């Protein structure tokens, strides 16, 4: 995923006084190819490769609630990239969020997840990054305003929000489950988008993967919650979603479409299955759905009429959608989420589904900003969120108006 809530900047321009010592580098094909795959698994490109630009040359801007951070140049260029970084220094970046010379990285570089990556895997990623074309591209990673731009504050942040330590397998679980956990909690850094954040931008670990909003997208609950989460999805549904961007329930759009396109469509079938097995065996499986808003509520009545006119041609009259073309709205985790941000967003701004080799269609949803006012959008979404088995809080027109204003500013 591209975004991170945390105060953040990637691996970045090295201090010129970086230690010169080089650890012996394993540059065998096997090691580099392993690192290439792991870099895909970790979706390094999302933050470190500008679309259409040179791989890993940095420059992708991450908008956080605290200000902008920019993904660093992680090509082996010695001046502007990581060409002078030793393996030990790289390991420290990944496991501790600490760059050469002892400065602290912002958590947008998701070291709070990457700390779980094994030393062996980090060595392979290091070997791979050192094999790509060096690009001279100086990136100013820290564009945060005062006082967030003061890295010293990160010492305190780390104390409160960061638990260092490599992934430890759960002996009660299968090898497959543990592989899935290693990916989801580690390189996959799913929680960066899907775990709610505290006021400092740190993960609320007791709500791991229960959904979070960032850059005006809501990354839904991906726990086993059968209502708000993906509890109803089978292992096959989850792997299809990650591999193709679509399954019979939903299609990836927004930041998740980028994740599928850049990362998970290229994962091995074993890793996809492991991730699905782990996500299926997660918390909240017994969560209860709230009661829906009554169909006779004035907002629901208005919403039903708008739905019939504007939405039903594609999403079909009972919200069942068309598989791999128009997302299903009935019993969809995103629709049942407490936070309607993504729903408001796609109605106002339209959306384009991701395209993969397996599912190349990439259908578009048009924008309805021009023909639905804030109240219309709120009503139709309230209707969608409380019909066909769905149940979720009503959408407030003020919330629609606020997002409309923010989208206009973008």
């Amino acid at each position, binding site marked *: 995923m591209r975004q991170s809530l945390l105060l953040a900047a990637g691996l970045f321009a090295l201090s010129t006084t970086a230690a010169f010592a080089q650890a012996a580098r394993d540059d065998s094909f096997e090691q580099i190819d392993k690192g290439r795959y792991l870099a895909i698994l970790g979706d390094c490109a999302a933050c470190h490769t500008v679309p259409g630009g040179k791989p890993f040359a940095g420059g992708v801007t991450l908008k956080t609630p605290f200000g902008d951070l920019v993904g660093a140049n992680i090509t082996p260029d010695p001046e502007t990239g990581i060409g002078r970084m030793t393996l030990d220094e790289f390991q420290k970046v990944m496991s501790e969020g600490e760059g050469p010379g002892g400065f602290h990285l912002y958590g947008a570089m998701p070291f709070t997840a990457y700390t779980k990556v094994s030393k062996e895997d980090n060595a392979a990623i290091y070997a791979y990054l050192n094999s790509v074309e060096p690009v001279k591209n100086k990136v100013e990673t820290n564009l945060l305003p005062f006082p967030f731009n003061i890295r010293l504050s990160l010492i305190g942040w780390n104390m409160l929000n960061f638990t260092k330590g490599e992934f430890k397998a759960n002996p009660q679980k299968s090898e497959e489950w543990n592989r899935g956990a290693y990916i989801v909690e580690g390189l996959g850094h799913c929680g960066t988008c899907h775990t709610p954040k505290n006021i400092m931008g740190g993960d609320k670990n007791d709500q791991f993967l229960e959904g979070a909003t960032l850059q005006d997208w809501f990354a839904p609950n991906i726990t086993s919650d059968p209502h708000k989460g993906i509890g109803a999805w089978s292992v096959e549904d989850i792997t299809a979603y990650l591999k193709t961007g679509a399954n019979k329930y939903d299609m990836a759009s927004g930041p998740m479409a980028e994740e599928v396109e850049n990362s998970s469509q290229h994962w091995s079938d074993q890793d996809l299955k492991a991730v699905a097995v782990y996500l299926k065996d997660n918390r909240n499986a017994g969560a209860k759905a709230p009661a829906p808003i009554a169909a006779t509520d004035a907002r629901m009545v208005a919403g039903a009429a708008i739905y019939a006119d504007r939405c039903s*041609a*594609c999403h079909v009259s009972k919200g069942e959608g*068309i*598989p*791999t*073309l*128009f997302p299903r709205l009935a019993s969809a985790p995103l629709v049942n989420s407490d936070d309607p941000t993504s729903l408001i967003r796609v109605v106002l701004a339209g959306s384009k589904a991701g*395209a993969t*080799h*397996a*599912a*190349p*269609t*990439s*259908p578009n949803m*048009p924008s309805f900003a021009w023909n639905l006012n804030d109240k219309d959008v709120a009503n139709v979404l309230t209707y969608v969120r409380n019909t066909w088995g769905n149940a979720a809080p009503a959408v407030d027109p003020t919330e629609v108006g606020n997002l409309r204003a923010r989208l206009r500013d973008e």
Partner: protein
Amino acid sequence: MEPFYDAFDKIAGISGKAGNLRGQIQEGGNPFEGSRSNEYPTGPMRQPYGPTLFAKAAKDLGYKPFPVPSALISEPYTNPLGVTMGPCTFCGFCTNYGCANYSKASAITTILPALIRKSNFTARTNSEVIKINLDSTGKRATGVVFIDSSGEEWEQPADLVIVAAFTFENVRLMLLSGVGTPYDPNTNVGTTGRNYAYQTANGVQLFFDDKNFNPFIGAGAVGMGIDEFNNDNFDHSGLGFFGGGSTRVTPIGAAPISSRPTPPGTPKWGSDWKKETVKNYLSTMSIGCEASSYSTRTNYLSLDPTYTDRLGRPLLRVTFDFSENDRKMAAYVTGKVAEIAKAMGPRQIVQNPSKGHWNTGPYQSSHIVGGFVMGADPTKSSVNKYLQTWDVPNLFVVGASAFPQNPGYNPTGTAAALAFKAADAIRNQYLKNPGPLVQA
């Protein structure tokens, strides 16, 4: 040809009901259809009221009505390239519009999403090929010249050039590039521009008192048809013409404002016109018969001696009129259609056979064909059966420009099947051994 029709059907998700499956006539399909190896990829469209009423009347008269096959999808469909289409919603904004529901097959909804993912594919949008370059012998294409949106000219060298620029532009590019000899109607010599043909549009309007067709419900090609009056499907003895047409009721959606059917004699404006509009909008339907147009010696395409485009290149000139044969055919098939119309019991029918001289004004059809036709004789055709030009073997010209006649069916299926046939020949024969695929 059948495997190539089949391949195209699967790409476009064509909806319909087979009438002839591996030689066995199928109930409910078109019994005049050629033998198909497979059913249509998606089932027939559900029928609006007008086509249903027509089909019943036609059946009662002994005809064999069938759902018109079309590139409008009746159910969700994912084609062999992995591209997904959605079912048609009969929104009525089909003909003349793009489809927001991914229900209408086009390159955009069936092929391009898969094609643009290929690393060896580039599309140059807002660019126009202005010339095919030939080497000094004139026997080999060396590439094309194109102009981009800023007006800059580029040369794209090529080992193989495939032109697919629609009938008119295919022919114009060949004339501008000097491929083949321009056709001369006086001497009947030359091939480029020869055998241009159109389509003969006929129809019967039916005004009812007691029917409501909800005519805003529609889709570009949904409907019921019969083929008893098409091509050689009926006995032409003593009729004095050959050819025929596709009899169809295909409500495309009566567009707001533009669709205001009123019976003859209604004033063209004022309160009586409004009254008749209200009275007839819901209760009028029509039966069409898009019929053949056979080429003649005097119908042809050439470069215009007077008019030029923005680059100073001559425009294409169309020299055309309906032939006596086609007018006779039009009168006959329209009369047969009117018999069915009468059986449907309307208050009034109005027959509109194609008659008189051709006129560029009223819209009749976009189905123009010929001008760079396929054949077995290089003195009378431009391309061989693989759409490879006789004179320049590394130049293929694809499209309905290859049709030597326009029979009584719409051309898209055959134009596409010919494209698949050409692509197959290029991949499996030409690339292994570049040169003429048919010895002249």
